[in-house]
């Protein structure tokens, strides 16, 4: 058995990494175990990337509290960790006059939850703000503080900062059980090793109920709910100026149309209960999403789609709220499950809430004097001014070598992404965007395989798209 750790976090999504970073402020020995090859590859990489203000969750719920607190801390945390955050505002549309009543209710709910900057606007104002919108739309609730971010970049930033502050990240490792004595987890059994720990934090997303069950706790059940998306070329990223919501139902915020922080247009998601491994886009689902968006935006250019994808929401349907609590049956297990929307918006406050639970449990938390709060992102060539580009290339000529033509990503950025922990094509894509553009890696992919092979010192046939068996080539030619 490895050295006894103070805390093991299971799951490297936005929640696990946020908790890791928050805990790295204290004198603790921490490891995070992730079954994939990188952080943020579950729900974190396939969602709408919105920081909701918190007008929507049921007043009094944990969701309402943590959403509002989380959203408030996003600007400072994004600055500290150098992650994109753009407050562009959202519009909840009503297609008829009856809908104004619903908008009033939402606004009222927002007030109760402590959300300000809400305004109901009528059609003429709306068309000024969103000129491409269908004339059938009658009005909207304007939520001025809603923002967009990049969830995977945030998870990566949490990881980098947590690592700098001493947290150990263990990838490609699945938890397969626990050693339990007298109602306490003594050690975490993985497919690679056994890791002893004082406290276990279960942030395993879609699989968090299964992890809890491995420890003998069946207090909650996760229902995976699939959402399908279409991502459009940057050429049409300016079709909308705000995040466009339909009137919400009790279970979902509906199918959205919004710009991404990278300037693309994103449409989705629908909502279908499914199984835990199912991230398959189906034809009917895609049509559902596109047809819905077309009603709001009749000019939606379907020929500008660059990719389609699906993500899973981890819903604890029986609870109807986040499940963030010490296990009732296992003394040193803390479950952080059922983190559906607004989970991203709540991530910073969920991490703080977990700290409070640990304090309540008597865990000694002494602040680490050496804690470094800041993290700088990889310089992104495409975001720089000509003067900044000139200076950067002078310092390091690899920043003058373009490797991704669509997103203007340089060799320097790719090398830095690999240095910071990217081991796969997707790892590079999520860090610096190479391969995420209109040619979808057609040009840079064949060049990145040999580069990864060279820098990681492993043969090309071991290089993968996204870990495990996602090998890109089978060997050399004859």
């Amino acid at each position, binding site marked *: 058995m490895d050295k006894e750790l103070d805390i093991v976090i299971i799951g490297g999504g936005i929640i696990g990494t946020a908790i890791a970073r928050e805990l790295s402020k204290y004198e603790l020995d921490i490891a995070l175990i992730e079954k994939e090859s990188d952080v943020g590859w579950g729900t974190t990489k396939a969602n709408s990337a919105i920081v909701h203000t918190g007008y929507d969750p049921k007043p009094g719920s944990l969701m309402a509290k943590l959403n509002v607190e989380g959203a408030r801390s996003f600007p400072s945390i994004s600055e500290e960790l150098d992650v994109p955050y753009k407050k562009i505002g959202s519009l909840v549309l009503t297609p008829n006059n009856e809908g104004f009543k619903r908008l009033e209710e939402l606004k009222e709910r927002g007030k109760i939850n402590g959300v300000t900057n809400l305004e109901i606007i009528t059609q003429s104002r709306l068309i000024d703000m969103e000129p491409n919108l269908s004339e059938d739309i009658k009005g909207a609730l304007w939520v001025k503080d809603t923002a967009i971010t990049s969830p995977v970049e945030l998870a990566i930033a949490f990881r980098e900062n947590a690592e700098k502050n001493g947290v150990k990240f263990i990838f490609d490792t699945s938890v397969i059980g626990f050693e339990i004595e007298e109602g306490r987890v003594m050690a975490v059994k993985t497919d690679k090793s056994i890791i002893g720990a004082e406290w276990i934090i279960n942030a395993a997303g879609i699989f968090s109920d299964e992890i809890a069950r491995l420890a003998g706790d069946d207090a909650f059940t996760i229902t995976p709910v699939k959402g399908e998306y*279409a*991502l459009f070329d940057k*050429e049409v990223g300016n079709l909308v100026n705000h995040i466009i919501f339909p009137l919400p139902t009790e279970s979902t915020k509906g199918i959205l149309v919004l710009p991404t922080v990278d300037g693309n247009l994103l449409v989705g998601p629908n909502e279908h209960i499914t199984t835990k*491994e199912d*991230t*398959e*886009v*189906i*034809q009917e*689902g*895609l049509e559902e999403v596109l047809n819905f968006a077309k009603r709001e935006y009749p000019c939606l250019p379907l*020929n500008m*789609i*660059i*990719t*389609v*994808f699906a993500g899973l929401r981890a819903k604890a349907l029986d609870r109807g709220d986040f499940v963030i609590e010490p296990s009732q049956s296992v003394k040193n297990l803390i479950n952080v499950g059922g983190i559906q929307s607004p989970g991203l918006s709540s991530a910073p406050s969920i991490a703080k809430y977990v700290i409070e639970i640990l304090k309540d449990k008597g865990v000694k938390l002494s602040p680490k004097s050496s804690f470094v709060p800041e993290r700088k992102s990889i310089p992104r060539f495409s975001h720089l001014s*000509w003067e900044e*580009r*000139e200076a950067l*290339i*002078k310092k390091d*000529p*690899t*920043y*003058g*070598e*373009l490797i991704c*033509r669509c997103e*203007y990503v340089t060799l320097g950025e790719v090398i830095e992404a690999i240095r910071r922990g990217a081991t796969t094509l997707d790892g590079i894509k999520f860090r610096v965007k190479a391969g995420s553009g*209109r*040619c*979808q*890696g*057609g*040009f840079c*992919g*064949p060049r990145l*395989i*040999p580069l990864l092979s060279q820098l990681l010192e492993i043969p*090309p*046939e071991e290089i*993968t*798209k*996204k*870990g*495990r*068996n*996602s*090998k*890109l*080539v*089978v*060997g*050399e*030619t*004859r």
Partner: protein
Amino acid sequence: MKRFNTDIAIIGGGPAGLAAAIRAGELGANVVLIERDFELGGILNQCIHPGFGLSLFGIELTGPEYAERFIEKVYTLNNIKILLSTMIIDIQDKIIYGVNKYDGVISIKAKAIILSMGCRERTRGALGIPGERPAGIYTAGSAQRLINIEGLMPGERVVILGSGDIGMIMARRFVLEGAEVLGVLEKLSYPGGLTRNVVQCLEDFNIPLYLNHTITGIKGKYRLEGVVAEDLINKKKFSLDVDTLLLSVGLIPENELSRKIGVMLDPRTSGPVVTQDRETNISGVFACGNVLQVHDLVDEVTRESYMAAEGAIKYISSERKVGGIMDVRPGENVRYIVPQRLTLPIEKPLYVYFRPLEPLTDCQIIGECNGKIYSLGKTEYARPGEMIKLRLRKDILDSGSDIKIKLEGEKV
């Protein structure tokens, strides 16, 4: 910022840019030729199969051999400055901005610009093929790059969607490398590429071509484990057990830079609207090669690029006479025509290039001009995969009126 001043700046050092540079250089202009890769030649470098140059040189060359003829020549001309590994990011008026690792940020001020950026492949995302998103799905050109340049095999059991030329060429290439190619699936009722590739790449290697078939599902979470194919006639679905899917489903001219300077694009070609000199609607900005229209044969790219270079020379030497304009429009059964616009006076023999909408036999080419009908020629077969080149009669051109060209024939 390192600044260059030149007569003609050419963006893209593939076959189009090379030919344009040579012709402009031979005619005495100062040229800056800009290439984003570390070597000239463009996509020809990975096209190691023969079949290039038959029309222009009368012999069959491989892609690299064809490119070499031009690359050698371009380096002998002292008035051509070549910038390799240089990416152009912006154009404002006639000033081009880019970067490379040697000079940092550069700007090139040119009297005329020739756009020769080529094209890119349509992707799975653009097609919206449903399913999972595993490794093992490649565009045909990416697979070609991996095999022919990087020396890496993408997979062992392959199916190809789309019967574009690169797809068929890669079907043969995979077989030659010992892989199993289960077939080429084509959504339409006729092949997308050249007949000679159907014969030489598929039939000669016993690779089945399934017309009226497409792919409706992708299996495998990490590496591709199979695809679901559909026979579009009888609506039957069946699975193919493959680890690799290649896509050869069309090429898209890369006009992102062109759009930045306001070049008007023809929705039919996805390339610029040009005159017989290959000049766009922006005065002094020319386009040639696959950025203008996706060609079947590199020989025609070379010829078109000579025209663009000559046009640019005429533009900078202010020898141009300015007359009227005639439009050339596609009529019935014609997918597109290049050039779309003729400027008068027309001083040289004039050829138009076009493709039928669908395959036709016993085909008449008919012109309509000023309410009169002209018989312009006939062809036994007309196929969308094979561009038709037609010299326009002097009497039509002399009329100075807009022309519509249509095809009449038996549908296949």
